[in-house]
């Protein structure tokens, strides 16, 4: 395979689990572990199939889920149950999720405060607050503003499902290169300003192209060339990231350079 997209730039396994729990409206205190595990693994497979470079943590979480699932299947011994043995195998996971969720909420709360350099200004040029504007490869945050990676994956799954052909990811297509797609998307963006994410995937397009398009969007987000936003009506749009006057990487100059930035070209 000619490309890989690093996923550790995006969210982690805890985010994915919380995403699934919310999406399925399940009770975090009573997680239907079998169903959630299956769906978690489906997401993983999906992401792997798209050549997203899954961080080890995702696999560890999958193992944890499977372990819990198997423990749930064990019959509960009738007598002599100590407190500990009798504990719900999911308890530890639930505790961790709740804690993580707490900090996610705290993060939202922090973000809602009056932020110096964003909402209010003191004297002098404000220092660059946004971690996603450094434009360097080491940037911490992809240009997914208020959309999570898993949102995108979910939308993408819907798109794949809508395809007239049976759901099967065919990755043998080399005709579509990410670099070309990136250039095409940037070109469209410079004409249109912003694009609806879904519109990038016409039903008539071959699956290989659809996948490459998806990866191109992720790569652009990672490189902070674009921002992904969800508007009030729930529609996910992408638009050019604001980069001051001097844009960092110039994809307009053809695929060669783009190919390099994508890295790990095999």
């Amino acid at each position: 395979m000619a490309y890989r997209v690093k996923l550790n730039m995006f969210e982690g396994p805890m985010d994915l689990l919380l995403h699934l729990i919310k999406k399925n409206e399940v009770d975090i205190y009573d997680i239907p572990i079998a169903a959630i595990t299956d769906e978690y693994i489906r997401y993983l497979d999906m992401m792997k199939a798209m050549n997203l470079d899954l961080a080890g943590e995702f696999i560890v979480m999958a193992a944890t889920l499977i372990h819990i699932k198997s423990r749930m299947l064990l019959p509960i011994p009738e007598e002599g149950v100590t407190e500990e043995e009798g504990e719900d195998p999911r308890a530890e996971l639930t505790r961790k999720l709740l804690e993580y969720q707490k900090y996610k909420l705290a993060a939202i709360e922090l973000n809602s405060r009056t932020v110096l350099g964003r909402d209010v200004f003191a004297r002098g040029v404000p220092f660059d607050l946004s971690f996603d504007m450094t434009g360097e490869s080491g940037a911490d945050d992809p240009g997914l503003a208020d959309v999570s990676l898993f949102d995108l994956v979910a939308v993408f799954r819907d798109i794949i499902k809508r395809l007239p052909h049976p759901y099967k990811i065919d990755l043998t297509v080399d005709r579509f290169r990410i670099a070309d797609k990136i250039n095409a998307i940037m070109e469209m963006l410079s004409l249109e300003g912003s694009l609806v994410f879904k519109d990038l995937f016409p039903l008539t397009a071959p699956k290989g192209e659809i996948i490459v398009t998806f990866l191109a969007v992720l790569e652009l987000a990672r490189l902070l060339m674009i921002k992904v936003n969800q508007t009030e009506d729930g529609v996910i749009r992408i638009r050019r990231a604001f980069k001051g006057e001097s844009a960092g990487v110039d994809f307009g100059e053809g695929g060669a350079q783009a190919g390099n930035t994508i890295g790990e070209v095999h």
Partner: protein
Amino acid sequence: MDRNALKPIIEALIFAADHPLSVDRLAAVLEGEARDDVREALRELVSDYSSGLRGIYIEEVAGGYQLRTHPGHAPWLRRLFKMGMQRISKAALETLAMIAYRQPLTRAELEGIRGVDSAGVLRTLLEKRLVRIVGRKDEPGRPVVYGTTKEFLETFSLKDLASLPTLKEIETLEEAPELPETMEGYATENDGGKTSEDNSAGGDSVEKEGRGDDPSGKGHGEPQGS
């Protein structure tokens, strides 16, 4: 020196200082003045700034007082500085929140909660001086522990760490939408009705009280997108 003479000096000092000035610091500079007079003059100054249509106000933050532009004027200032809308990454916010509430904590503890490698985001937070190494943990390996800085308080308009809402308070705001779940209705194009700007989670934070009554900021119209 009488209080009326004190006020302009304090104004000049707060204006010139790079960071919030504490009453202690003011009193030290204004040696010989009664602390109470300093405090009272400062109070009057703060109130002068809050009355009428002003472009700047004095905020009590990070243990001191600082002049700032009104939130409603941010779009114009962005234009002045030729900046885009600044966004702080989710990873950074999450990490900051954990450090703020759990400090001091080690990188391993942090990663235990987040479930992902956090070296990169920690590095950025250190560089931006929102976080610092505050010591070492007394355990095998003596790992360094992280805490938040004064700049963190300044950046997030916090008087001190105690002004952070407790996690419990935050939990009660849990209905606050966490963006991801809107995906569900994506195919059917549900209403959603949510933008990134109004993470209503913190709508009623302590912070806002002080200056929430200043509508002057809003409604001046915003500049067209830069």
